[in-house]
Structure formats: structure tokens, C-alpha cells
């Protein structure tokens, strides 16, 4: 374990006061704050080693290209991928998923094929597949989760069949916190002859990923949730699968040889990285991952597990509050409803009390509706969260309770 108060010194924004008071930031599931290591690294690159990566043979260009490719190796290490070329830099996880949809799925799916997803998917792992199904005639199949948000093994296996060509599944729900048993699910998917894509956006923030151990075919996550900058994400894909995929976008840096009549495309991963890369963002993303690795993923996990237990207990003290998503195996994401108080009203008072949480459907509208709500409030943890943050949340919720119940 680490000293969280020591760690918090690395995050300039956590020292930043709003209206003269500190902020309890409980919205890491939407986007994480950045340590100065990330901020300094990006600034240093711009100040001392910036040029367009992969172009030019002068010192700046060579330095940034080296840093950019080192960033790819950091992502490889973070995911325990076999080779750096299995890592494609994208804008974010949404683009990573869209890339697989536009290339692999367009190439491989036919009418009669099925894509299997869970009820707990974020729009990013739902809408691209709906679109692909409309184009290809494939069918989108959704397997149910339990009312408490738990994964139901029997439901997954029941919906998996010889028509399933792809399982697209979140490793951790952004609404419920439910952790899905990816390794076991991947084995079942492969037994059925399907590929498996993992949306690891939430999982990557809290737990160690091992794509080789999981044996997943694709995995998407974003830089901004893993303490890095916005505008950058990554796609992992098994080399033998990605080698057979057509390009995603067309232009510079993804080509092998071009004439006016014809172009041959570059090998992976360059084939999927058309145009000037977000090189400094990729380097920043790697720095965020290095920060997590230096703290130790098992330490982050342990810190958050302790807080998850504490938050679950403390939230139960708030009258009329229902926690939504109480699966046994869950991470530091707490969605809740206070009966009679609209989440937007709640968010207003929490903001006045300097408590930052998210409200709404959390980009998982069908899931929130499936649970019987149109909108929920959600608090979520990061590696810098403290018991004091949770105390501030509970105090503010009790204040909101008094504020709105007053006649």
C-alpha cells in the first residue's frame, strides 16, 4: 500500500481550491486527474524534442519518434501484449472499438452472424455494433445481467452459439462497477468459434490487465481515464488477426508504396494510424501508465478495495438512498438514487458543497432504463481518492436531503 496523502501531492488539481475550499473529486470513472509527471513530460517534449514523428531525419524528429515508439512499448507492457506492433494508437476507446467495427467486422460479418454483448455496455460498445449489424445484416444479441448488476454465467453461455462471431464485453461496468470474468468468457467465446473484444476503459483504471492470460482478441482503453491526456487511446489486437485486417482510414504514414493509380499499405500497426499521430498525447498516456505501474497495480487495487468497502458502508447511512449495482465482485463505482430527489437536483447541491460526481445515464441509457431509472448519480474512485472524499460526499448528500425535504 502507499500513502495516499503523499500521492495526492503529485496531482496539482487536487491542491486547487474552488471558492476557497478543496474539492472532493469523485468522478474518475468519467476522466481521471493528471499527475505532474504526465504534465511535465508532455511539456518537456514540446520544449526540447518536438517534431512530426516518423518523418524527418533530424534530431528532434528522431527523438520524438523514439519517444513515441517507447510509448507503444509501455502500453504493450501495461497490457502484457506479446509485441509492440499489437498496439494501435487511437483517439480514445470509442475510436478503438469503431476501428474494429469498420475493419474486422465489415470484413468478417455476414447476414445470419451474431454479435453478443451484455446489458451493461457503455454506448461506445453498443452503438458501433448496432450500426455494423444494420450494414451487414448481422444480429446484435444482448445477454441479461442480474438486477443487482451481477454477471450471470448461464445467460452468457445460453446466448453464445455457432452463429456468434464476436463477443464485445466490458471488463468493468462504468455504471455498476461489476467486474466480468474475461478469461473464462474468452475461453467460452473461442470454444464457440467467436472472437472477443474487451472494453477495458474502467477496468484499466483499477486493476491489472493481462491480454495473454485473458486470451482476448481485441482490447480497447483510453489515456484520459488512466491518468493521461485526452485525445489518445489504444487498441490491442492479436497480431495474426490484425495482419489480415484492411486499413481503417487512408492517408499519410499508413502506406508502403504509392503511385497515382495504386497504393500498397504498411504493416501493422502503421496501417491503422493514418495521418500525423497524437504523438505527445501518446507519450503522455505512457507516462500515466508508468505512474500506475510504479505505484503497483496490486497496490492501487488494494487501496480502492478498502475504499469501496468504506463507501458502500457509508452510503447506506443516507436515508432513502438505494445503491444500484451491488454485485459481489465490483470496483469503485457507486451509482445511486435518492427517492424523491432528481439526480440533477442532487448534483447541484453536491457541486455547491464542492463534491464532484456525475449524474445522468452515464452513456449507458439502456442499462440505466433496464435497472428502472432514467438518471442516476454516480461517485467513482481513483488511486488518489480518500475516506475524506467519501465523508464529504455523505455529508453533502445529507445536506441535500435536508435541503429538498424542507417545506
Amino acid at each position, binding site marked *: 500500500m502507499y500513502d495516499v496523502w503523499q500521492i495526492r501531492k503529485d496531482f496539482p488539481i487536487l491542491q486547487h481550491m474552488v471558492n476557497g475550499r478543496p474539492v472532493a473529486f469523485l468522478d474518475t470513472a468519467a476522466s481521471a486527474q493528471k499527475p505532474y509527471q504526465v504534465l511535465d513530460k508532455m511539456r518537456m517534449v514540446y520544449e526540447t524534442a518536438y517534431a512530426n514523428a516518423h518523418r524527418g531525419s533530424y534530431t528532434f524528429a528522431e527523438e520524438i519518434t523514439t519517444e513515441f515508439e517507447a510509448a507503444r512499448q509501455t502500453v504493450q507492457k501495461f497490457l502484457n501484449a506479446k509485441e509492440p506492433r499489437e498496439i494501435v494508437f487511437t483517439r480514445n476507446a470509442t475510436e478503438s472499438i469503431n476501428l474494429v467495427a469498420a475493419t474486422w467486422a465489415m470484413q468478417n460479418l455476414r447476414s445470419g452472424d451474431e454479435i453478443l454483448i451484455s446489458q451493461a455496455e457503455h454506448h461506445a460498445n453498443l452503438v458501433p455494433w448496432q450500426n455494423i449489424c444494420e450494414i451487414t445484416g448481422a444480429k446484435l444479441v444482448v445477454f441479461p445481467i442480474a438486477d443487482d448488476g451481477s454477471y450471470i454465467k448461464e445467460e452468457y453461455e445460453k446466448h453464445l452459439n455457432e452463429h456468434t462471431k464476436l463477443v464485445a464485453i466490458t471488463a468493468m461496468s462504468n455504471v455498476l462497477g461489476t467486474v466480468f470474468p474475461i478469461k473464462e468468457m474468452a475461453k467460452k467465446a473461442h470454444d464457440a468459434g467467436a472472437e472477443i473484444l474487451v472494453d477495458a476503459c474502467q477496468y484499466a483504471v483499477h486493476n491489472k490487465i493481462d491480454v495473454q492470460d485473458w486470451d482476448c482478441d481485441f482490447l480497447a482503453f483510453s489515456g484520459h481515464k488512466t491518468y493521461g491526456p485526452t485525445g489518445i487511446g489504444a487498441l490491442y489486437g492479436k497480431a495474426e488477426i490484425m495482419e489480415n485486417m484492411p486499413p481503417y482510414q487512408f492517408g499519410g504514414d499508413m502506406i508502403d508504396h504509392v503511385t497515382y493509380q495504386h497504393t500498397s499499405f504498411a504493416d501493422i500497426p502503421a496501417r491503422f494510424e493514418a495521418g500525423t499521430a497524437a504523438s505527445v498525447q501518446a507519450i503522455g498516456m505512457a507516462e500515466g501508465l508508468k505512474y500506475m505501474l510504479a505505484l503497483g497495480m496490486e497496490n492501487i487495487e488494494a487501496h480502492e478495495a478498502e475504499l469501496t468497502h468504506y463507501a458502500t458502508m457509508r452510503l447506506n447511512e443516507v436515508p432513502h438512498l438505494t445503491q444500484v449495482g451491488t454485485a459481489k465482485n465490483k470496483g469503485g463505482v457507486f451509482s445511486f438514487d435518492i427517492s424523491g430527489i432528481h439526480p440533477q437536483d442532487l448534483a447541484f447541491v453536491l457541486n455547491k458543497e464542492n463534491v464532484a460526481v456525475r449524474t445522468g445515464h452515464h452513456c449507458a441509457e439502456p442499462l440505466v432504463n433496464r435497472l428502472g431509472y432514467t438518471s442516476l448519480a454516480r461517485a467513482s474512485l481513483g488511486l488518489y481518492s480518500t475516506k475524506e472524499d467519501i465523508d464529504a460526499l455523505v455529508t453533502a448528500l445529507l445536506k441535500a436531503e435536508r*435541503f429538498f425535504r424542507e417545506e
Partner: protein
Amino acid sequence: MDIDELIDNFAFFENWEEKYQYVIDLGRKLEPLEACYKTDEWKVKGCQSQVWLVPTFAPNSIHFCGDSDAILVKGIIAIVLMIYNDKSAEEIKSIDVAKIFAKLGLEENLTPSRRNGMMSMVEKIRQYADGATRAD
């Protein structure tokens, strides 16, 4: 009560709790919107909460009824309607709502993330006013 009286009343509040408790009270006193109008047809898009707005056109003015499932939004709707109700289409189009909200010290309700809701409603009111002038 007209909007100038409201601005005067608002000057007395010492903290956000008092101010918004008053906003909530305004919402509670808002002319009720009949349940039959609480449908997608009358919903204002782009709001985090559900907001409904229904116009009634008189010869020289427009009357609006509105509601929301969020209690603070309902209070803000009461203020917006106090600003716009029973005015002519031309008057509606000339009102500077941001200025009035600033005088009330409620400008935070027009910030970009909240703006969606309130500004969408104001946009909708202006559209109805536009439609009324074209029909004339």
C-alpha cells in the same frame, strides 16, 4: 410578481441556500402543466432532466406553461416564464435573458453544461415567437 420585483427580492439573500430555497418555492407555485402534455411531443431536447414547454397563442401575445421532474429546474422554469409570459412575439425576441439572470445572480444556470437545459428552453420560446411573427 414581475421580474423587477423578483430582482429586488433576490438582493436580500445572503447565501445560495436561501436563494435556491426561494427558487424551489417559485417552482412549487408554478402554474401546473396538465399531465396530458407531459409527452415527447412537448419535451425540450438537450436537458439533463425532463422539461416540457407548451405555448398558447393569443392574438398579440404568447402564454407558456412548463414543468420539469427536477425541482430546481422547475423553479428556474418559473423564472424564465415570468420573464417571457404573455409578451408579444417581438418583445420576446428583444429580451436579453442572460442579462436578467446575471442581475438575479443565477448566471451559473446558463453555464455551458447547464446551458443545454435552460438555453434550449429559451431557444424554444424564441422559436415559437418566430413562428408567431411569420404567421402574422
